[in-house]
């Protein structure tokens, strides 16, 4: 059940009153009353690491507080199994992978073990991502409702992997995707539920001026100089070199500094290569700071985002891109590429500015740095947008609605 993981994020539902309003929490309670006692079994592949584990760790206790009997279990697997699922994950994202018959055999064998050994006992089985997808084989025996929650973009998958997984996905009662663009055409009902950020987490909670200043001092940043910040791991898909190019165009006319902050994945040699290129490209420019932030430095990331004048996310490819919501929640004007889930968060010229090239990013940055009123208005709109659409309370509400909708076919349901 991952009690340690759950207790780590055990916020009380009442703590969100001050952020989203009591009436929003009352609505959650209203739905909770209708679903009281319903047994929801969440199953994924790990209790720690990654966005899915983090969001489950936060959502499960909140569901429990609303009267839902929500639980969280993980499947078991050896290293070989997780090597295969990693390959599947990358293949579903569309990257070329060397996948052979033996990989499918390993996946099936471990899944069968889990099917036989796992204790399944719920009204709704909420299966997250491809790793536990085969558990649905027990549907005829267990009955109940089965949902496949796909957290990744499967719009352009490796066909062999997708066809293999699809035979199981089709057995579910419903699938849930994070964005329309991430989905596949399926014969089952498909719902769209975006991911969310937790305003009470270290990464998003309010910080004092002293805390922010301490982080700026630690990294030798000048608080008096306008600051452009991109937070992302050092990866070609985040286009850090493109960010530096855009910054250099801006810096010609406007006094400002650039902060490129992120971590590297220890198991990804490409990250070190990208970091090297970024260091080389920025070498000699005192206005560019490249910060290698260790994992778990959520408060430091929070402080850097709060200290930013403009937040940039110039990705070439992106998942949902929740760093955008994190920046918008801090009322920061954001310039971002129109890829992945970013356009759902940035409504161009309303909640931020979208760009399609280095020139576009540079132009948008100049607009925001030289028009504080526009920047402030976009930041304000952005925060409202996140408040209504990308906070954990909305996520919680939509999960509750999903459990209700599973029992009804009609478009309008009266409770």
């Amino acid at each position, binding site marked *: 059940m991952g009690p340690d993981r759950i207790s780590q994020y055990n916020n009380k539902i009442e703590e969100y009153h001050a952020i989203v*309003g009591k*009436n*929003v929490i*009352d*609505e959650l309670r*209203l*739905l909770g009353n*209708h679903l009281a006692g319903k047994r929801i079994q969440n199953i994924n592949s790990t209790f720690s690491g990654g966005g899915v584990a983090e969001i489950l760790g936060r959502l499960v206790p909140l569901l429990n507080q609303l009267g839902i009997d929500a639980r969280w279990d993980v499947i078991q697997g050896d290293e070989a199994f997780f090597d295969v699922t990693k390959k599947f994950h990358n293949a579903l994202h569309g990257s070329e992978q060397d996948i052979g018959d033996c990989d499918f055999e390993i996946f099936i064998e471990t899944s069968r073990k889990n099917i036989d050994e796992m204790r399944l006992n719920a009204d709704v089985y909420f299966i997250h991502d491809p790793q536990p997808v085969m558990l649905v084989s027990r549907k005829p025996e267990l009955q109940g409702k089965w949902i496949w929650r796909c957290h990744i973009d499967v*719009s352009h998958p490796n066909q062999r992997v997708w066809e293999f997984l699809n035979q199981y996905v089709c057995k579910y009662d419903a699938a849930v*995707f994070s964005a*329309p*663009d991430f*989905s596949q*055409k*399926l014969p089952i*009902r*498909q*719902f*769209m*539920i975006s991911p969310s950020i937790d305003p009470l987490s270290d990464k998003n909670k309010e910080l004092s001026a002293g805390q922010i200043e301490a982080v700026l001092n630690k990294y030798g940043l000048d608080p008096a100089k306008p600051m452009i910040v991109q937070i992302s791991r050092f990866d070609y898909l985040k286009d850090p070199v493109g960010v530096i190019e855009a910054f250099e165009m801006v810096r010609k006319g406007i006094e400002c500094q650039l902060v490129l902050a992120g971590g590297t994945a220890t198991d990804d040699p490409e990250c070190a290569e990208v970091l090297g290129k970024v260091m080389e490209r920025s070498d000699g420019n005192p206005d560019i700071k490249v910060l290698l932030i260790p994992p778990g430095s959520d408060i430091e990331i929070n402080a850097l985002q709060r200290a930013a004048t403009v937040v940039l996310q110039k990705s070439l490819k992106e998942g949902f891109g929740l760093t955008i919501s994190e920046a918008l929640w801090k009322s920061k004007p954001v310039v971002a590429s129109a890829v992945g889930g970013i356009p759902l968060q940035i*409504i161009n010229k*309303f*909640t931020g500015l979208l760009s399609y090239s280095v020139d576009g990013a540079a132009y948008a940055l100049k607009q925001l740095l030289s028009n504080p009123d526009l920047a402030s208005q976009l930041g304000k*709109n952005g925060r*409202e*947008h996140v408040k*209504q*659409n990308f906070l954990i309370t909305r996520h919680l*509400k*939509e999960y509750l*609605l*999903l459990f*209700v*909708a599973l029992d009804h076919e009609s*478009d*309008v*349901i*009266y*409770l």
Partner: protein
Amino acid sequence: MLEWFQENWIILAVPVAVFLAFCIVGLWARRVLYNRLDKLLIRSGWGGRETLVQTSRGPFFFWFMLLGAFAAMRFSSLPAEVQVLTEKVLTSVFIISIIWLLIILTNRLLSIYLAEIKSPKPPGKFVTTGVRVTILMLGVLILADYWGWPLTPVILLLAAAILVAVIASRDTILNIFSGFEIAAARNVKEGDFIKLSSGEEGYVTDMTWRTLTIKSPDQHTIIVPNNKVVRETVINYGRPLKRALKPFQFYTRLHLKELTGLKARKLTELVNVLKSAPDSVIYYHTHHFLEEHQFLTPEPANDFALWVDDSLDEHVLSEKLANIDTFAYYSLDALKSMIILVIEQYMADNPASRSVKGENDFHFLKSNSIVVPTRYLASDLREFVEVLRKITIDSLYYHIFESRLRLQKRSNDFSVWIRDSFGEHDLADKIDGLVPYTSTIEAMRSFIIQNIEKRIK
């Protein structure tokens, strides 16, 4: 024994005779005095007459008996020290009887007078207990003084007891004093609709000297200590307004986005899918922006207009689609027909229309509405306006948008109820005339509240 009695009978007979004489005088005096007192009190019309007369009749005679015993003792041949002791005992019994009478009398009189105070209802038990304890303490002090016991420890003991009692019941005492203040000011009465600055609001259903009970529009019974009522700012909206025969039940509408799996990459595909699309799809793509981006005004146009502009670069068509007045249609089917007509006319004039750039396909989504009754009920316009301030935008959205178009009511729920329940046609028309597509939901909330406030002022 008989011999002793024959020799000393006079010693015994005199005190007995004296005692009996006092008893007889007592009976006679009680009869005469109480007859006169009763007549006098009847003339005065005092409500406590019966209580006073009935309660004190017994003790009055008892005091004559005590007096008789006192006098008899003086006529007796008892030793001086026995006489002194007996005198002291008799005096103490007299003091105790006075205290007992005072306790009984004040309790009975208080229960008569407190019952007459309807609002706020006094804390009868608390007052009577307080009076009883005070008289008892006075009696103890008098007795102690009479017997020559040292008073300092007794007073200290009593003071400590009083202090403990005051500390233990300080909230109650504060509430009672606040109750006096509320009763004296007469600013709040049962039946008034009040709102405290701390958030509690509703009709006052009960007032006591300690608490005030409010029935809130979300059907909660709220008990507010009087001390809090005095401390907070209270808005009193006065007596109930005209009550509706059927209260307004506030619902909330929560929605879940469902992917239909249908996509379009060019105008012909868009039109083809639209033709067979259910109402829930049309509703989603013409309304979701209003809710998800309700803080923006004017809101961006419907999804079709945005997509043909952003993804097809068909700016003229985008403007035509954006200019469709959603408010002019009372059914989604009619709205859908209009959207299709505009696109088909454009395609007829511009046969070489473009395909989508890149991967920006139009994904058809639909909205699953889950309608849930809230705890809020309003029976008059005051309750209605106060609930309006509290409900979520989902609830407003349901009553203003969803009922009007998707559920095909030709008016919004608020206007229908106001018109049907109170005959307030002007107010209902004003709310009906609100164009929900050109202002934020919060701005609409303010508009409706302001207009109702103006009407019920």
